[in-house]
């Protein structure tokens, strides 16, 4: 028995429309992809969808009240909201360096949360002065 699942590739902003053929519980064919990332995405998306989480963490004693962070790798899609909620209770201490691990092994996923920007020590600048 075969089934066709239509997806939109999110591997890059081209957004290629993909048609994935499932046969006996496995992926037998992927069509519509422009590059091999699309093929890999389609296979993953129908079996184990994952996403990168990006959010912010409050910073104490920094020039900016928050620092942008991301998961160093992808986390399972069903855990996105849970991870986001876990992050909400964190605070980072300035200075923060881009690439620095802010939180290890988020929600048991084995994936670390890392800063994507530097925040120096100092008083926060008046916001929206421009």
């Amino acid at each position: 028995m075969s089934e066709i699942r239509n997806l939109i590739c999110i591997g890059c902003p081209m957004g290629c429309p993909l048609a994935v053929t499932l046969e006996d519980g496995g992926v037998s064919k992927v069509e519509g992809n422009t590059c091999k990332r699309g093929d890999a995405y389609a296979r993953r998306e129908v079996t184990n969808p994952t996403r990168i989480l990006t959010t912010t963490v409050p910073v104490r004693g920094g020039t900016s009240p928050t620092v942008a962070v991301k998961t160093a790798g992808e986390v399972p899609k069903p855990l996105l909201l849970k991870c986001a909620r876990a992050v909400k209770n964190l605070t980072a201490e300035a200075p923060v360096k881009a690439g620095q691990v802010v939180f290890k092994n988020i929600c048991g996923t084995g994936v670390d949360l890392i800063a994507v920007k530097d925040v120096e020590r100092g008083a926060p600048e008046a916001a929206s002065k421009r």
Partner: protein
Amino acid sequence: MERCDLAIIGGGPAGLAAAVAAREAGVQDILILERDRELGGILNQCIHSGFGLHTFQEELTGPEYAGRYAAKVRALSIPYLLDTMALELSPERVVTAMNRERGLFQMQAGAVILAMGCRERARGSLNIPGYRPAGIYSAGTAQRLVNMEGYLPGKEAVILGSGDIGLIMARRMTLEGAKVHVVAELLPYSGGLKRNIVQCLDDFGIPLKLSHTVIDIQGRERVEGVTLAQVDENRRPIPGTEERYKCDTLLLSCGLIPENELSRGAGVELNPVTSGPVVDESLETSVPGVFACGNVLHVHDLVDFVSQEAEAAGKSAAGFLAGKNTRGRRSIALRAKDGVRYTVPATVDPNRMGEETIVRFRVSDVYRNPTIAVSCNGEILLRKKRMIVSPGEMEEIRLKKAQLLARPDIQEITIALEAAK
């Protein structure tokens, strides 16, 4: 008066990439003017990932993408001034600027690159009578509040407009613990990237209502709810389709518009379709020695293309400064027709162009299986088949120098859609 060879107005991704390219092409004396407190432009508030796949073959967040270019600028010791606002540009390329240390100052530039980016469109689309209670924000303002100030504007939101910033904010507010009830879009299609519809709405079960608009806002002091209605093909609300949503926040994502007050002051000719400068193949505006790139030229969805375009502008400016790239006599007009709304550039000089010139444009509607046809004097120069084109995604074709040089008498090239809707 102070002098510099190349003044770059705006230190966002466009300004930074232009500076790096100009330096690599041999321009020593460069100055970037940035009004914000840091380099990187709007990308500093775009904390989601998905930037840079084309440029770096990896998926970066906005601040990381901006950070890479800022690092290149520092590594090349290209000077920049922060907290410095360019106030005026003269047709003779005198830049008037201001900052706290130096007050008002003027600089004679050999060449200028406009890289001021864009701003959000005013609330024109919210054409409803009544109060304007607190709780109504533009999506970009909300993005800045949440991502840079750490302030969540509300707990229950409705978003009007399905452009990328609206979609991104639907996810962002959800991740921060708010409930986003719905994204309403006046048009029958979304102007946002597919990937954002999938990842920002579908992933969280947020409905997208196409052909819908806000017809009423409840609440006097603070938003208490909004009423949506479906619209007909003339974008008029259809009676009987009203739905009320209880919410404390309404975000408006009404699109972006190039920021061209400075350009206008310098006498730069603007294209009414893009609201950006009219440029030639070298990205030079109607004012000689003044170049433009990035969102100030036309609104981009992908920062990778902003960087590409900016590199081209940086190289052109370097050529201009070296006296090797001044405007020639021949200029072929590019005409947008049949579903193509505009082209950037607007003209090409086959002698001055490189081996090929990228022509970027947007279409006026969603078309399935169209062919992009490039022709002159009834002869087809190029045909490009597409699976789908939509106004939300920029298209491009490449013109070849050899092809144009081989046809010395062409004056106009038409770019049109042969649509098989």
